């Protein structure tokens, strides 16, 4: 087995959510170590680790932390983005369900590093059963003096509040998440200013993904260099991948960065179901371009390699599709999701996704023409890069990539149109 269990090390232990289990396996040692370090030292360590945001964008975490103006007189906040709604991704759920203290410890260290005294876990509304797990863990941590006033005698103060969302994909976008947290409708804000400068209630706010924060204790405990060498030069450490689709053993697997994609599918995933051939893979959750088998064979699971085959690592939701899959149907399913989740703020995303769904319906019903496919392509151009937040782009990337790589799945469904003579 090539899994490298760092974050998932405790998952198989009995009673893994309890603080006793956590403490027995080296828990909160990183916190004790961190509280003896200065804020700069912690950030430096994280920078050294080459840890990159695990939520999807892959922004270097240490750099993001250093953007928070620690000299600002305003209060600073840490927000944990646990609004995991990306189709194909379910790693955060597992991390919170099996090892909540790892996240809490990571949050305390991160909050200490940026000087925040209040932090939030914005959890997806559908994860209601995790709220109890997290709150129990927070209670335990508070009882042992890891949370509250004067943590471990360091005069550092922190409290964690678990806030459930109400089931909107857009609230996974960090500024929309902050709006939602403030009690407003979840719309993305205009950037700049970025949340690190003007975030929650207008104060500097650090927003990090569950997996990112969960990795922090390990980095502090064992050092940034150790973490970095687990992965590649530019993307350090390990990452959890949610393997789903037509594989024999779907599930969450933690592997080193740079792990070959096909190895993940064939070894961890146990190969394609029923011995069929691989047709396509979406390597990073639904909003990244789809790749074909040939590209998948070249692809390693790190940010640079994914980019080289024209896709993105993003949140690590690996969706595997075998040769029986109709990519048109897959794409239709995705665009329906994005139409439903489009917040309606900006014209291209609101109208564009709606229009795309209508066109897909038309094609599915059999009355589509070649002109409709051209129209879809033109609409994608119109949406991509012109929407207010990345949702619009996320909605069209799967379509454009699918139409480019699997054109036959689309063209076989439409009637050919005679070329229309244009007046000279």
């Amino acid at each position, binding site marked *: 087995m090539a899994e490298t269990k760092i974050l998932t090390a405790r998952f198989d232990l009995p009673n893994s959510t309890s603080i006793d289990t956590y403490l027995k396996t080296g828990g909160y040692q990183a916190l004790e170590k961190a509280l003896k370090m200065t804020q700069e030292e912690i950030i430096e360590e994280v920078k050294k680790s080459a840890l990159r945001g695990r939520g999807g964008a892959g922004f270097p975490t240490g750099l993001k932390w250093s953007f928070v103006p620690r000299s600002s007189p305003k209060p600073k906040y840490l927000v944990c983005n646990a609004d995991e709604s990306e189709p194909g991704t379910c790693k955060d759920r597992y991390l919170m369900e099996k090892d909540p203290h790892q996240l809490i410890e990571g949050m305390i260290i991160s909050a200490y590093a940026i000087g925040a005294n209040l932090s939030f876990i914005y959890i997806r509304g559908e994860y209601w059963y995790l709220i109890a797990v997290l709150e129990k863990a927070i209670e335990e941590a508070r009882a042992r003096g890891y949370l509250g006033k004067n943590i471990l005698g360091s005069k550092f103060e922190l409290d964690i509040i678990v806030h459930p969302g109400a089931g909107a994909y857009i609230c996974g976008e960090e500024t929309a998440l902050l709006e939602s947290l403030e009690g407003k409708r979840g719309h993305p804000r205009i950037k700049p200013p970025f949340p690190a400068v003007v975030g929650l209630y207008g104060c500097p706010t650090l927003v990090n993904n569950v997996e990112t924060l969960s990795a922090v204790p390990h980095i502090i405990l064992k050092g940034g260099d150790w973490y970095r060498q687990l992965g590649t030069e530019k993307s350090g450490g390990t990452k959890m991948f949610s393997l789903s689709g037509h594989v024999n053993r779907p599930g969450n697997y933690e592997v080193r960065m740079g792990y070959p994609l096909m190895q993940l599918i064939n070894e961890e995933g146990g190969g394609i179901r029923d011995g069929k051939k691989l047709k396509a893979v979406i390597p990073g959750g639904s909003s990244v371009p789809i790749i074909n088998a040939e590209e998948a064979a070249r692809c390693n699971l790190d940010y640079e390699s994914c980019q080289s085959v024209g896709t993105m690592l993003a949140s690590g939701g690996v969706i595997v599709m075998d040769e029986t899959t109709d990519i048109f149907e897959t794409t239709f399913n995705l665009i329906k999701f994005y139409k439903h989740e489009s917040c*309606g703020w900006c*014209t*291209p995303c*609101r109208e564009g996704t709606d*229009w795309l769904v209508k066109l897909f319906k038309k094609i599915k019903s059999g009355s589509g023409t070649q002109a409709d496919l051209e129209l879809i392509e033109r609409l994608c151009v119109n949406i991509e890069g012109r929407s207010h937040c990345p949702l619009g782009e996320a909605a069209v990337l799967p379509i454009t990539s699918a139409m480019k790589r699997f054109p036959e799945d689309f063209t076989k469904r439409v009637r050919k149109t005679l070329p229309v003579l244009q007046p000279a």
Partner: protein
Amino acid sequence: MTETVKIKVDGRELEAPKGKLLIEVCLENGIDIPNFCYYPDLTPQAACRMCLVRIERMPKLATSCTVQVQDGMVVTTQSEEVLEARKGMLDLILGNHPLDCPICDKGGQCELQDQVFAHGTVYGRYEVKKNDTREWRLSPFIAYDPQRCVRCYRCIRVCDEVMDVHALGRIFRGAKEVIGPYGIDKGYSLDCEQCGYCVEVCPVGALLSVDSRFRSRPWDMRETITTCQHCADGCQMRLGTRGSQYVRVASKDLKGINGEFLCIKGRYGSSYISSEERLDNPYLRKDGKLVEVGWEEAIKYVAARLKAISAEDRDAVAVLGSPRLTNEAAFALASFARKGLKTSNYGQIADVDLTRFFANLTAPLATHAEVKKAETIFMLGGDPTENNPLSAMVIRYAVRKNGARLLMVNSRRTKIARRQAEMFLHIRRGAEPAVLAALIDSDENAARYAELAKVKPEQLRRLGKAISDSKRLLVVIGPEVNGATLEVAARFAALLKSDSREVKYLILPPYNNSVGTLDMGLRPNGHELKSLFGTKIKALYLAGSNPVEQYGNSWKEALSKLDLLVVADLFMTETAQLADVVFPVNSFAELDGTYTNAVGQVQRVNRALEGTGRTRPDWMIINMLAKEMGLEFGARGSAASIFRDIASEIPAYSGISYDRLRKEWAIQTERKISTTAEQPDALLSALKGEIAKIDLSLDLDREPVRQGSGLFRLGTLTSRVAVMREAFKAKEQVEEATGVR
């Protein structure tokens, strides 16, 4: 001073202050950037994506409504790529737009229409079925058609930020998103001030006024810029008329003192000019009943009676105007009384005696534009939200945009006190003189004044500190400040003025021409003259007032004691029904003239309608009467020539002419400002009597001022506005029946 930066737009070098929005810089320099969601003074939205431009060194096309200019920025607004992106956006917007322009009231004034025309061929490839939605009536005044909506959220932002009402929001998500009040799907209606600002800013026909629905089309009506005649703010508005009928009031792209702001009365409160109830002929009482007669007969009758009564005792004839008359009418009325009838009993019926304020003024009046820039605002009484909406708007603006400190002293929990005030002293009713005295007097008496006003002495001290800390102070005086308190309030600024502190006043009089009629010589002595009715005064000429409706039976009794009552009015009011003769007059839409607003700005009233030809302006009736009676008082044959007389006789108006008003819109009259040094002791002794009048048994009025308590109140004019009458009569009935307010 802000730093200026140099940017390059389409090859043109531009200079602009750093941090200014790119779209503003471009629009100011004549570079057209299409937009829907951008609106001056509102927070940027970046929702419509129409203003996309290419900025060098930026990976994507950027929205110019959110980008702040920086030095060395190179912008392209006209390239193939940018135009293609805009066309694409239009294509998307038009996708679900119903294209029912022939039906839409906005057709012809629609920004979307303009953009589609400007961009030529949009692809128009939307062949699939459009999302069909029905129209909603958000309130008796506002209709909403979600399908036409382009989701620019101007309406929401204007409601939140400018009006501070927060009545509109976004409901549902994505393509199903609509604008509306909470619970729109359950049929809840808009709970707001019904100002219609959302309708005005809507770039398309999504939000529309119900009252002007289908009445006309923009190109088919004649629009006349005139002055609103409801409150003392004197907003400019565009009165749309078709033939002899009122169509609508709009304010789009106006450059008057109010910009595009209008309140419910301004926007919807003028349709009475085409009311069926308007008087069309003079009435004469014959055998106890008022019957329609010709002008000649009515004038002859009145002239003969007045002549007879005046011959016995000149002072037996009284002339009372109204604070709603134009300056010209008021001037003619005053001259007629003073020079023609030679009576000393003339004036107007008004509650606030502003003469004492203007006689003792120690600081200039601030225009609304100056209020916006105020740094500290001290409000002594007044509820501008309900009674002077433009003043409220500019005060809110000062607080919102410039972070002005608002220090509020009021006996009622007004909206502005609840939401904008940094400091709110909730005082006992009528205790304004005590607060004023506390500010003048030394600290040792603070406890006594605090008890009188039912506040804590500490609060008074903090108020005094905030005022003395201020750099640019604006003193706002509400209509409940009256008599000697008003006089002291006018002299109060002399104590505060210094080299480092600028002080200005803003008063909130109750009527549109309270200040102007006062200037014209109509003293607010109506209530005093009332006691002489039947004894010393035998005949009364009453122009434009309806005291019976306003003050009730005491006036009804007094008026019935008169031998002759002549009323000149628009409607057969409660007062007119008591009259011996009723003259039908022209409404503000049918005459030329001027109003002087609360801040002393003279603004034109322009004739928009021909009228029936059987009604007359007030001044013309006076002229006819005087001619018949053989009196000479310097009658003039036109409003313009009367105004020339005003300009030559009244110092504050000298130099103002219709010609200048046409060019400058609003000209502030210069008030005499007393420069004598004031002594605190003198002011305190002046206040003594008023302080003694404070009723210590009164408790605080804790009830918050209800939205619409002033705006939705139906008076003589507004009860003749069909849409308002129906909306608020029904509301009152529901409230009375259920007891829920």
